[in-house]
């Protein structure tokens, strides 16, 4: 029989038990979960700040609809100006002052690299980092850091395979941004071509984001005599390269990265006629592409943007990106139920099978496992016909 003493002892222990539970779930209360993020809202990469804005708007919408499992999602997104020392400072502030549960969709390779050690040592999930650098899918060394978008090397390896299949005698020129993003494309291309075909790349031209134009580099690439041109560039420079390569009268098969395929921003800026024939690999839908007009996912996305953001945000590929990432996180939080400990959040994030996101291409799904930290690995080749992107081939998994 349980006597009064035991009962009292049990009752006295209860607050300690729930206190212990609370200590197991930093950043979480019965009413709220706090999540941290760093984004470049200022500085050279400020265009990507749109991703953070979208995610903030998305969770505001979720909160107004009642939150997730009864909890409000408090996403705290701070500016780091794409400067790693600032990222470290803001991350520490979020973890140590704001006591957030985990970090979500931090943007940029250097910022994520700068904070990866710190977060992993403290056992704090660094979920769905907003960068395609291959180094972030490394469960063996960094079990708390999970990727999101297909990595750049995968994409250019897909290009390499396509080149080998369609133009095995090609001479390739590569224009790349002189940072982790651009260099990863070069590495992926070389890996995809293989040692034996490494000689196919006859020209590598780099550029800095502080340069006004890359017309000079494009001229050099044409001058090398190449007949395949890989443009590993961010939107502004990709538009310049597409336009210039056309204006030069250069007959080459042009590949562009999935970062710069927006019809409304890049193709329009370059000139639809000049962008004809471009090839890219994509994993998502372009909101300005007429082919998706009746698609359910696009309609869902559109109604979100109409309600929560402004018209010009609709066709911005960064809005689409933020929307998908927020959708994914909301799904993860739902699946965690009431166990929002960091361990469980990581566990749920790394055990997703075949999840659809509204703006992913049909056939591309989220898949993670304890040995696979790249949620999106499938892409499909498509070519621009002057008005929209025509998919061809099968969905390829990298």
């Amino acid at each position: 029989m349980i006597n009064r003493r035991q009962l009292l002892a049990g009752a006295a222990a209860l607050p300690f038990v729930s206190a212990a539970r609370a200590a197991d779930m930093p950043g979480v209360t019965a009413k709220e979960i706090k999540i941290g993020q760093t984004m470049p809202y200022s500085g050279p990469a400020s265009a990507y700040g749109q991703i953070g804005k979208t995610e903030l708007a998305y969770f505001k919408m979720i909160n107004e609809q009642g939150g997730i499992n009864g909890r409000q999602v408090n996403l705290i997104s701070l500016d780091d100006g794409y400067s790693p020392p600032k990222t470290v400072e803001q991350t520490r502030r979020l973890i140590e002052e704001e006591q957030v549960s985990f970090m979500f969709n931090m943007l940029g390779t250097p910022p994520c690299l700068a904070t990866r050690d710190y977060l992993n040592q403290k056992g704090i999930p660094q979920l769905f980092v907003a960068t395609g650098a291959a180094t972030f899918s490394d469960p063996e060394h960094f079990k708390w850091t999970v990727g999101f978008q297909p990595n750049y090397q995968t994409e250019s390896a897909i290009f390499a395979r396509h080149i080998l299949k369609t133009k095995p005698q090609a001479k390739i020129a590569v224009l790349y941004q002189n940072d982790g993003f651009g260099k990863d494309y070069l590495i992926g291309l070389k890996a995809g071509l293989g040692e034996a075909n490494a000689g196919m790349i006859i020209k590598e031209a780099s550029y800095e984001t502080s340069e006004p134009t890359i017309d000079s580099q494009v001229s050099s690439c044409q001058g090398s005599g190449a007949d395949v041109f890989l443009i590993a560039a961010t939107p502004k420079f990709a538009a310049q390269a597409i336009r210039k390569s056309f204006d030069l009268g250069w007959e080459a098969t042009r590949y562009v990265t999935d970062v710069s395929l927006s019809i409304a921003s890049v193709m329009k800026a370059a000139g639809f006629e000049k962008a004809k024939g471009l090839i890219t690999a994509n994993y998502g839908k372009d909101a300005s592409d007429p082919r998706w007009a009746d698609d359910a996912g696009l309609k869902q996305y559109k109604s979100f943007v109409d309600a929560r953001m402004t018209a010009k945000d609709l066709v911005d590929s960064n809005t689409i990106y933020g929307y998908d990432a927020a959708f994914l996180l909301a799904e993860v939080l739902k699946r965690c139920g009431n166990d929002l400990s960091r361990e469980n959040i990581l566990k749920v994030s790394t055990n997703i099978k075949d999840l659809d996101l509204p703006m992913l291409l049909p056939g591309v799904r989220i898949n993670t496992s304890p040995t696979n930290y790249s949620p999106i690995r499938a892409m499909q080749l498509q070519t621009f016909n002057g008005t929209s992107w025509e998919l061809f081939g099968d969905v390829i998994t990298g």
Partner: protein
Amino acid sequence: MPARLIWGAFLIVAALAPFWLSGYHLYQFAQVMIYAIALLGLNLLTGYNGQLSLGHGAFFAIGGYGAAILIVKFGLPYYAAIPIASLVCFIAGFLFGFPALRLGGLYLALATFALAVAAPQVLAFKGFDAYTGGSQGVQVPKPGPLLGLHMNVDQTVYWLCLVVAVVLFWLAANLVHSRIGRALVAIRDQPIAAETMGIDAALFKTITFGISAFYAGVAGGLDAVAVGFVSPESFGLPLSLAFLVGIVIGGLASLPGAIFGALFIEFVPNWADQLTVIFGENAKALPGAVYGVMLILAMALAPSGIAGLFRALGRFVSKGSAL
């Protein structure tokens, strides 16, 4: 109140800070000291010697990368790596001082501005990738506790920065109050008269460039250790501009000015961030504008910097007491 008393009190508070400040705040104040060292170096060059440099971010970068590479690729301990990297900065600054002799005011500003813009590109140069890690940067391990005493990483870094800052400030104070210091100011204010009096302007100016670069290098090395990471993105133009803002707002030709300036560039951008929260999420871009307004206001209220304000205050007070 004698200056020494103020410095002493300040030092005691600073030394005891790690006992009541948390890790994150210690990190911020370590950054303040790092910036203060860099600003002190820049102030020697621009404030005391009148040579305008917009490119000290580059020397900061050389110190940072130098220390990181020496620690990670060559296995040196940080207390050897930082001085060696800083020595390299001294040489680089000294050498840059030669063409700088021919360039006055604006032209020197432009040349150093170009230096600041070019630095990230040089750091990302693929020929150096084996050492610099290219765009992946270099991860720098944190130092072990000082003298084997019992302290955590944040306290270690903070005290390390404090000790180095104290030493360098003391050296700078001695320099500035000596004949050399007076020679520097003479060169700044009356270059022709100074030459006529036998001061070897060329020598002084180049050495000052070297010393100023040395200070920036030490700061950069400490920063590499404090942040634990260096990459080309850490050292762009905004850093050099922040240094210039720091010395002017802190106060030119003033030692405490370096500290005021460091406090400003470390904390005010965060205030600007927080102020714009009242505008809602769409105002994420606005902190820059708020910061710009603060810069203009700061100059309107204190054209000679915060140190200048204190000096004016001091004169006002002493005038009052003389009555």
